[in-house]
């Protein structure tokens, strides 16, 4: 649970949150006559719910045919509107999947096998599902695995026990896979290890 509080700051402005409102964004783009214009301006060339939502002031190096093509009118609609989602309040914190709780293990050794993960993570609870993705090009493990437990406590125990631990002599990180809501932008102050409400120590002369 501690992990989910430490979200990384992302470089978009608070008022960009409006762009994350798909309905508002779709209306703007769908009705805009410039939506079909093949201008490689990031906001107008790209569909409403997507890169436009970044709205970062950092200029980007752009590349690719997609910028030169006319925007397909349907594109702005495909990823907008109502989507089925897990029932959640949108706040921070881990989210369960339909059948259990899924954790993400990263830094998995490329020669690891399912058995290795089973051995390392099986002691925290019964593993309902285990996905150890292979890199189809190399045949080795892609470097991450998804593990599902039935109970929150089991998953949490796996995280606190194994995060920063080792698997086949290689360091792994373990965290929740799903969250109940979007990342919140972290106040700069919170980068202080003492927390953003810390007071500086009293001066002593």
């Amino acid at each position, binding site marked *: 649970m501690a992990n989910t509080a430490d979200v990384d700051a992302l*470089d978009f402005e608070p008022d960009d949150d409006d762009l994350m409102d798909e309905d508002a964004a779709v209306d703007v783009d769908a009705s805009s006559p410039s939506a079909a214009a093949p201008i490689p301006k990031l906001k107008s060339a790209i569909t409403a719910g*997507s890169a436009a939502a970044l709205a970062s002031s950092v200029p*980007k190096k*752009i590349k690719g045919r*997609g910028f030169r093509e006319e925007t397909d009118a349907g594109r702005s609609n*495909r*990823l907008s509107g109502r*989507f089925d989602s897990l029932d959640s309040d949108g706040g921070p914190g881990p*989210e369960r999947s339909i059948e259990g709780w899924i954790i993400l293990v990263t830094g998995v050794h490329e020669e690891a096998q399912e058995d290795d993960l089973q051995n390392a993570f099986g002691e925290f609870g019964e593993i309902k599902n285990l996905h150890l993705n292979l890199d*189809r090009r190399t045949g080795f493990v892609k470097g991450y695995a998804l593990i599902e437990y039935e109970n929150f406590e089991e998953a949490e125990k796996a995280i606190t026990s194994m995060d920063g631990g080792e698997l086949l002599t290689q360091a792994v990180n373990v965290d929740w896979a799903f969250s109940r809501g979007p990342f919140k932008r972290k106040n700069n102050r919170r980068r202080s290890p003492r927390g953003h409400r810390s007071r500086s120590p009293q001066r002593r002369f």
Partner: protein
Amino acid sequence: MAEEENGAAGGGEFYLRYYVGHKGKFGHEFLEFEFRPDGKLRYANNSNYKNDTMIRKEVFLTPSVLKECRRIVSDSEIMKEDDNNWPEPDRVGRQELEIVMGNEHISFTTSKIGSLMDVQTSKDPEGLRIFYYLVQFALLASSVELAW
């Protein structure tokens, strides 16, 4: 910690969108998903062939998941590629891959790639191969995470 976040695998924005589809006798059939910077993963699958229903799902991913996605994209070196010599989308279908990572934004389009043979015989086998495998990974990742 903040310092090591800056770099290809770390800080800055991350956004990935993938689309594959075609317009045929069954209408517009497509699959598309999107990893957004705030962690939302959206997935839409419209296959009229099945029974005319569109599947649309979304879920929020943790920063750890996005960080891993970013690492895999970075390792693939797709950001260094260009779709100049890739086959253009055609009547059979099209694929779109759009990625924002740090201060780079790529938006590639190409036709459907049926097999590695298509990759091998293309004008840019190296680049297409990178694209092909990255797409394989992204499809797998999104389908696993949405397997509910």
